């Protein structure tokens, strides 16, 4: 059995051409993640560039309105570039620089990871190319321009379903052409080992801060933490610190699109089965012959047919629960949080808010829920307007 296993999941299922590149990343990560200088540089970037620690905000109006558990929001939307993606990207781009790479490439769905990668590349002086499904470049046109503004070259991917999975395919193909000077900065806790581990390590700061901040405010651990799941990076970042704390319920919210009983969803844990794709053994939406299914969600960031292998393991062990949230529920939550707290969450994060809206009223007032707001919703305003029948474009 290869390295990088989470139970039966994970592994390194990639072409031979890429194996040496992936092993080079692993060696470099093992070296630099223990290097005091690297750690100090990354800490400095997170604090003084990204704006960490992010706030843990007590959502009093929401708590009062829902009438149950006390709700806190972990405000990853307040990070520089507006999402949790920057945590991972600063780590990986710094690693690229230490490895002597001069160019980074990345896939992006909604565009948040692409924007974050372009940002870090601009800051650290590396060349940057982003692969984004054609459907997503249309849905998230503003983010395309934002990446270009930051000096990145954006490739619209026209193969397959023209969404996130195809962007990953194309980035892997590009990396296999050119790896001497290039690092693939993977955006989620997926892909071949060591990426699920590296990305989780760079994102686990979310949960570490939640624990520290909540102990300071409430003197105790939360009863539940809730995060949305596409590939699963903000969710694993939220959960990881709490995995040993068995009393903390971990809840991941998948995209049910038009409903998990329709063909139009991206609910991998609810509807997927074990497979091997994008370098990892995990759960995937696929047909009986192992053809990867075209998935759907209103959220480009959750529109992925797989899930990180560590989530597959947490689901199998029952340590984390995974629920599915429809487009309609997510859009309602998007509008609800905007009106109730004056916070416009990303449509991805709105899936987590939507589940909290169902859960909080069923819990006692002395219980505490933390929702990770993984990103801000400015990028989604035009799409939500269109969903509601207002024909505006960015």
């Amino acid at each position, binding site marked *: *059995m*290869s*390295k990088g296993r989470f139970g039966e999941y994970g*592994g*390194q*299922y*990639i*072409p*031979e*051409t*890429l*194996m*040496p*590149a992936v092993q080079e990343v692993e060696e470099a990560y093992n070296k630099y993640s223990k290097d005091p200088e690297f750690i100090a540089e990354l800490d400095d970037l997170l604090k003084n560039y990204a704006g960490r620690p992010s706030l843990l905000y007590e959502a009093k109006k929401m708590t009062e309105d829902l009438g149950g558990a006390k709700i806190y929001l972990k405000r990853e939307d307040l990070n520089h570039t507006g999402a949790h993606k920057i945590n991972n990207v600063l780590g990986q781009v710094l690693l690229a620089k230490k490895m002597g790479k001069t160019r980074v490439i990345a896939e992006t769905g909604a565009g948040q990871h692409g924007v974050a990668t372009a940002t870090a590349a601009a800051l650290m002086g590396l060349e940057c190319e982003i692969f984004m499904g054609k459907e997503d470049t249309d849905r998230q046109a503003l983010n395309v321009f934002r990446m270009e503004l930051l000096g990145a070259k954006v490739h619209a991917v026209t*193969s*397959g379903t023209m969404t996130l*999975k*195809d962007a990953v*395919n194309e980035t*892997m*193909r590009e990396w*296999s*052409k*050119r*790896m001497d000077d290039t690092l693939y900065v993977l955006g989620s806790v997926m892909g071949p080992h060591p990426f699920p581990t590296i990305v989780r390590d760079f994102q686990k700061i979310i949960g570490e801060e939640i624990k520290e901040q909540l102990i300071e405010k409430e003197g105790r651990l939360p009863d539940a933490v809730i995060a949305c799941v596409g590939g699963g990076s903000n969710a694993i970042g939220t959960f990881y610190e709490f995995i040993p704390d068995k009393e903390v319920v971990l809840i991941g919210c998948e995209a049910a699109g038009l409903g998990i009983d329709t063909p139009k969803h991206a609910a991998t844990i609810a509807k997927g*089965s*074990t*497979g*091997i*794709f*994008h*370098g990892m053994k995990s759960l*995937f939406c*696929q047909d*009986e*012959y*192992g*053809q*990867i299914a075209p998935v759907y969600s209103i959220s480009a960031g959750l529109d992925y047919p797989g899930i990180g292998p560590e989530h597959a393991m947490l689901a199998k062990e029952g340590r984390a629960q995974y629920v599915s949230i429809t487009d309609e529920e997510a859009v309602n939550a998007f509008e609800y949080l905007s009106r109730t707290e004056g916070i416009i969450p990303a449509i991805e994060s709105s899936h987590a808010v939507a589940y909290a809206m169902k859960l909080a009223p069923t819990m006692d007032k002395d219980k505490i829920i933390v929702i990770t707001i993984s990103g801000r919703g400015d990028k989604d305003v035009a799409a939500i307007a269109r969903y509601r029948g207002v024909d505006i474009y960015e």
Partner: protein
Amino acid sequence: MSNIYKAFENKKAFIPFVTGGDPDLETTKNLLIAMEKAGADLIEIGIPFSDPIAEGPVIQEASQRALAAGCTTDKLFDMVKEARQRVKIPMVFMTYINPVYTYGKERFMKRCVECGIDGIIVPDLPYEEKEELSGVCESYGIDLISLIAPTSHERIRMIAKEAKGFVYCVSSLGVTGVRSEIKTDVAKMVEMVKEVNDIPAAIGFGISTPEQAKKMASVSDGAIVGSAIVKIVAKYGKECIPEVEKYVKEMKAAVEI
């Protein structure tokens, strides 16, 4: 051991690839027969996959066409079984790990045996993960073909030592597709294989002209050609048989010299 060694017995092998079910299974069946007739020594049949990350646009599109035309792994097995009545040379499948895994590894190999398949090439199953299939392949007598790449360097010996059937030498970085020039020192790669294992080594990726095939075969045991053939299939559709036959004849003649 399978029959794959026969493809290399006292000769340089020409190994064509076709995507199964492109444009339809009947055409693929006729192509297998025609390619043997034209001098192919071993045939690679691609089981189409929705997301073939090691393929360039030509084979990606062929996979999409095959899937859109309704090709499934089961239908492909049925077709190969029929073709096997006529085709005597070794045949191998080329596909990705997920179609094999999801079909059921054991069930998949059982059907390979029924259809007379000799080996399987799985580009996203590197040495470190080969245990996923090596045991089940062995128990059914199907050779799990190993690939080595221009980036493999010192890994070549490790991979070649345990290789079965033949070693697939990937000539170039990147994905499958026609290239005007092959810059890798493939002769050196083949040499390293032979140092540790008395096994045939054939070169693929980027080969399309008789000159390239001749050059590659001169430093190895054979040349593998995929995209150039798939392009002919794409151009002529169901009428592609005589065109492919002509091309295979020409390529076989080139590797023989």
